[in-house]
């Protein structure tokens, strides 16, 4: 046990198990025991062995695993010695029937969660309308600045938690179409460009990818030519002039 408590692996959840009930239920399912009839105390020894077999228990959750283990041990002891006096009077609250009900309740929750997960994976969701453009749009009236402040307070409280948890903010999104137009306009002005120039000083990954795809599209449409002298070297972008039709060439001459 001391070995277990000594573990301070900074895990948020245990690999494969979401908690003490999850571990117990997993065991029951693996062994194909009927949860309605099994004597829960009989599971104590194996449950302890399972806990011991886990490499790293998250410190804050150790107590929860051990609490369930000790509950099972107590039930086992009681089945061997029915006359056993309560260790702590209050502790007699949860009988075997209570614990069984709790496990069944949790098992039900897991089945429900799985059903919800299936629905989510199926992707059959609904969408509402934000109702932006009605035919006769007037600016709305009667806004309550208190409601606005409340919305801001809500956003702030959620954002504070987000910072604590180090959640990475999404980047600005670009459309390939928009970027293609921008580059096409640049190429029209300037015969030769470099990929580095298009990226700017601090490009985000998303921006770099969109820029690259836009370039490939322009290359495919024979708007530009690309060349790269060395591997990983600078990519040079040149305006393509060779595919000019006679009419366009004539227009060019005028």
């Amino acid at each position, binding site marked *: 046990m001391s070995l277990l408590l000594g573990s301070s692996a900074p895990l*948020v*959840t245990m690999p494969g198990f*979401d*908690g*003490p*009930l*999850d571990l117990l239920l997993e065991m029951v399912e693996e062994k194909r025991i009927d*949860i*309605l009839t099994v004597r829960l105390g009989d599971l104590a020894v194996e449950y302890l062995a399972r806990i011991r077999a886990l490499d790293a228990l998250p410190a*804050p*959750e150790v107590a*929860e695993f051990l609490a*369930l283990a000790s509950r099972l041990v107590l039930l086992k002891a009681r089945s061997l010695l029915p006359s056993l006096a309560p260790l702590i009077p209050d502790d007699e609250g949860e009988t075997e029937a209570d614990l069984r009900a*709790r496990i*069944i*309740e*949790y*098992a*039900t*929750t*897991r*089945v*429900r*969660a*799985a*059903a*919800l*997960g299936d*629905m*989510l994976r199926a*992707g*059959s*969701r*609904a*969408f*509402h*309308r*934000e*109702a932006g453009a*009605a035919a006769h749009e007037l600016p709305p009236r009667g806004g309550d600045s208190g409601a606005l402040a409340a919305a801001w307070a809500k956003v702030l409280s*959620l954002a504070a*938690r*987000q910072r604590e*948890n180090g959640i990475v903010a999404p980047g600005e999104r670009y459309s390939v179409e928009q970027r293609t137009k921008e580059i096409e306009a640049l190429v029209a002005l300037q015969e030769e460009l470099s990929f580095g120039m298009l990226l700017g000083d601090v490009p985000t990954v998303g921006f770099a990818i969109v820029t690259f795809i836009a370039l490939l599209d322009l290359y495919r449409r024979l708007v530009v030519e690309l060349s790269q002298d060395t591997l990983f070297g600078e990519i040079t972008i040149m305006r393509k002039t060779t595919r000019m039709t006679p009419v366009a060439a004539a227009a060019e001459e005028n």
Partner: protein
Amino acid sequence: MGRSPSAMAIEAVLFVAEKPVSRNELAKIVGATPRVIEVALSELEAHYEETGLRLQHEGEQWQIVTAPENARYVAAYLGADRLRVSSASLETLAVIAYRQPVTRAEVEAIRGVNCDQTIYTLMSRRLIEERGRIEAPGRPIQYGTTWEFLECFGLTSLDGLPRVITPDGQVSLPEPEGE
């Protein structure tokens, strides 16, 4: 197959509404009794079965949404991302959806683990929301699911939550009022 004038009026109002509208508000706008509105709403609900839209409601609040069958087209148009929820968050969501309104302590008692993080995650995805507090020591917050929850799962109301067979062979039903 024509709709009644009340149903058409309700349809137009719900179409322009930017948030769910209550039956009473509809009654006031359309100038009909709540009873007439109720009939018109069920008429509309039935009509919508054959369309690309659905009538969604939570209690007395009503809203028109797209039919789940068309999700991929609408997502393609809106550029919407697929929602991802971890299995731990799904468990917490399952407890809240079937048991609402429910406190964090109640969720934790059922799941047997701390649910702070998963509740926060579900809040920031707007799948659950605060529903008030219990008048008990510490005044704990009660949580319930949101409109976004119904939308994300393609449910027209909480009655549509999946029935599952529990380990003791019961059919599990949503318990909106708790126990």
